[in-house]
């Protein structure tokens, strides 16, 4: 397994993956939809997949002593690593956001630990759409990326919309008031931090399940593809 991951990072990873990590600084833009930076990880992964196709990566991997499913597994391990690195990079920038922008975020969820719930869900949507659609053919990245982009942005608008609505209607809707006071804010005490970390953990669990399900579906599709 570690050899497959080594192959991905050494032969398949494109500089664009690293360049798009700069998107993490979008968390410092005042009043911005903070889930948008996570879309750019998908953009970088799309580019890496395209280059992998141009480099006949699937053919090379299939000639190594690994199973056909390992071709899919190695790509999933790679995208999970890239996505988790992005989430780790968010942590210091989140603290920086808290230090620089004290007024909160009027355009959606704050850059607080609960943001990880949304980030994990963005990645879940990307992994559940882009990867299985791509592995139906093993080469059509454009269609997979178009559909995943529509799905990711639809999710971002709904998710951020909920927090915009929560800020506007917190006095009349109890659930929105709970969101605004417990989730969409920088945690000021231990109980708030616990709630936000639980949100992040729920996101992580959904991400793990969705990614595993996407992997299984991708393997099933790729079984029918001729390398």
């Amino acid at each position, binding site marked *: 397994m570690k050899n497959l991951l080594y192959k991905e990072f050494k032969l398949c990873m494109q500089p664009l993956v690293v360049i798009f990590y700069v998107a993490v600084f979008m968390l410092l833009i005042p009043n911005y939809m903070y889930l948008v930076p996570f879309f750019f990880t998908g953009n970088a992964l799309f580019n890496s997949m395209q280059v992998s196709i141009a*480099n006949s990566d699937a053919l090379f991997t299939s000639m190594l002593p690994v199973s056909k499913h390992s071709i899919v597994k190695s790509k999933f391990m790679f995208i999970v690593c890239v996505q988790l690195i992005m989430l780790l990079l968010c942590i210091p920038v989140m603290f920086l956001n808290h230090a620089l922008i004290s007024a909160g975020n009027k355009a959606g969820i704050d850059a607080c630990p609960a943001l990880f719930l949304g980030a994990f869900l963005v990645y879940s949507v990307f992994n559940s759409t882009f990867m299985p659609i791509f592995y139906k053919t093993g080469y059509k990245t454009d269609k997979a990326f178009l559909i995943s982009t529509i799905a990711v942005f639809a999710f971002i608008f709904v998710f951020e919309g909920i927090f915009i609505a929560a800020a506007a209607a917190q006095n009349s809707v109890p659930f929105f008031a709970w969101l605004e006071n417990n989730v969409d804010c920088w945690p000021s005490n231990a109980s708030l931090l616990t709630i936000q970390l639980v949100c992040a953990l729920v996101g992580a669990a959904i991400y793990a399940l969705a990614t595993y399900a996407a992997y299984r579906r991708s393997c099933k599709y790729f079984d029918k593809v001729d390398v």
Partner: protein
Amino acid sequence: MDLLKVDSLCKKYDGFTLDNVSFSVEPGTIMGFIGRNGAGKTTTMKAMLNLIGRDGGSVTFEGMDYYAHETECKQDIGFIMGEFNCYTRSKLSKITDVTKRFYRNWDDEAYRKYLKRFGLDENKRVRELSAGMRVKYALALALSHNARLLVLDEPTSGLDPVSRDDLLDVLRGVIEDESRSVLFSTHIISDLEKCADNITYIINGRIYASCDIESFKARYLLVSGDLEALSKAKPHLIGHKENAFGFTGLIKAEDAEKVADCRFAPADLESIMIYVEQEA
């Protein structure tokens, strides 16, 4: 025991069917896999190694069901699909560094030896290599993990005559210890006559013959004569070509005595293929 046994392998495409392909490769032998372009050589090799799905059949390698023990079997198989066209912007050293991690029997000394023998510079990028050098690099990788079976799809097609001869020497060297074998497809028939022990001949997705090369050649005779002799010989000929002096054709050795006033000569593989394909 056969090192490789392919049994009733089937694969259906629109307009082409690989139809119950069966053959076996014994240890210490070189098997030439011949057929026209589009006959099903590459499809057979890919289906055999699970690179494409199959619609039936089984493959046994070293007594193991290949599909059930794919990872284990691949440790002992070196596979080359023509020239190496992967990661063209990467250096050979980088690709080798990744490749060798997957093989428990990787032999760095052998790898260095083949690099030197083939004149390969590890610091070059794949795209800087000629087609022939790419084939040689693929070979160096395949030969450096002590594979018991080398499966080579058109390994000689991009090589100059000297390099081809060198490659055939390498292949002969590979099987010297009697435990390893080579299965290679080609349409450069002269290469086969230089080094193959056995051939498997595929026509339109069906195996036409799979046996040792000498007994295959002994089944046929080249026949020639004037046009008058042709009219009598025609019903017995597998295929023929007319020319200004009469005709030349191919006949089964057992039918030779049925034909009068003709000259006979031993058949070579290329002539057999040309006339058999004419019939097909």
